[in-house]
């Protein structure tokens, strides 16, 4: 693809802290290379702000290679911007044209409060994982990886579910702010494998209970999450979560 440079107008959400109200501020950036990543473009803008003596924009990032799930930005009305199955750090500026205006907002969800500017607190996801995302293993030497036979399809499906990077795009995108795709992936990756067996019931019940405590919304099956998930997590995982939950709810002896 031909290299080109562009001048852009950015409208970025600025918010001092959790308590204050924020607003969109306009910035201009010039000579942005089409080969930069979206976050590199933000680095350029922040350098510019620092030189001007202004407060740089706070945004989350870590790996910058699409695997950590930190780079939460709602770009031009879509989680992680216009490209499919892609994170913000892997979005490149060739997705935009010279003269474009780009609106950048943080994830908006009651369960992901804004910490500052574009940074949100996703620890609600961590608490859901803590509620059931573990398995029992014997200590001592690691068991031979092939000791337990696993059906190929289950292994594949579990692997696909395990690809979830906990980025929160599903929640950010869902009109109901529902975390069902994330929780569906976390429950599925263990429910599909024999290693997940011992906690199978309690896991789904506890994770769903924690999800509700955190204030995520309810799934109404719009499937917007699947369309925006950078890892292509399928809504079949939500159905699996539903059936695991129904079965566990019916068979559990606890209230």
């Amino acid at each position, binding site marked *: 693809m031909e290299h080109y440079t562009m001048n852009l107008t950015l409208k970025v959400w600025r918010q001092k802290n959790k308590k204050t109200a924020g607003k*969109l501020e306009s910035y201009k950036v010039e000579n942005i290379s089409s080969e930069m990543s979206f976050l590199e473009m933000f680095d350029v803008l922040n350098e510019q702000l620092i030189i001007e003596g202004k407060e740089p924009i706070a945004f989350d990032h870590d790996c910058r290679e699409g695997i950590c799930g930190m780079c939460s930005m709602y770009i031009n009305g879509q989680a992680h911007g216009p490209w499919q199955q892609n994170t913000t750090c892997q979005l490149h500026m060739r997705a935009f044209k010279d003269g474009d205006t780009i609106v950048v907002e943080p994830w908006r969800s*009651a369960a992901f409060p804004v910490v500052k500017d574009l940074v949100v607190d996703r620890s609600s996801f961590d608490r859901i994982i803590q509620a059931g995302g573990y398995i029992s293993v014997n200590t001592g030497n690691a068991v031979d990886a092939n000791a337990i036979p696993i059906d190929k399809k289950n292994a594949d499906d579990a692997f696909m579910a395990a690809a979830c990077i906990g980025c929160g795009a599903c929640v950010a995108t869902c009109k*109901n702010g529902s975390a069902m795709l994330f929780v569906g992936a976390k429950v599925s990756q263990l429910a599909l494998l024999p290693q997940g067996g011992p906690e199978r019931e309690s896991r789904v019940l506890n994770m769903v209970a924690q999800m509700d405590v955190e204030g995520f919304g309810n799934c109404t*099956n719009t499937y917007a999450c699947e369309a*925006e998930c950078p890892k292509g997590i399928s*809504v079949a995982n939500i159905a699996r979560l539903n059936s695991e939950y129904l079965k566990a709810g019916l068979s559990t002896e606890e209230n």
Partner: protein
Amino acid sequence: MGITGLFLILFLIVHAGINACIFLNDNGKTFNDVAHFMSHNWIMRFLEIGLFSGLILHIIQGLKLWSQNNKARPIEYHYNQPSKNSKWYSRSMGILGTLLLLFLIIHLSNFYVGTKVALYSGDQYHNLFEEMKEDFSNYWIVLIYVIGVSALYWHLYHGFQSAFQTFGINHKRYTPILKFIGITYATVICILFALMPISMFFKWIV
């Protein structure tokens, strides 16, 4: 939501089936007979209670979803493009449902109330068919019905397959079949319903 929804879907089959009797074009004889049977049968009266409970439960569940989901996103995006990732009708079940409820109020006050008044005032043979003909000679009533049925179409289009996902059924082989059944069901039922006021308005049925 899914269970009550599928329950109401079952009811619609009966409703559409009975009403389709008007298409026999026998001056409403069969239709009036069946309607008479339905309103003078204690099993039906009993099922009616179940039907209304199902409907009210469906509405309560919907309101609960709506309020919880609103709380889950207290601040809206300034710029959002939901059409890039989902279908409008899947995001509009609440609005479609509200339209349906408004329509239902009109619909029940048109026919249900009249039938009940006739029943309890001792009118032995209430001519529902004539009442329909009279109401549906009015073009704006016909228009309201067509709008109501369109809302029903999109509500069912999303609702049917959505119910199965909620029950935990998402299967490579069965889900496409379920979707097909849902779309066919929505199409057939809604065409049947829409044709009733339309064909009476244009006097295809006399």
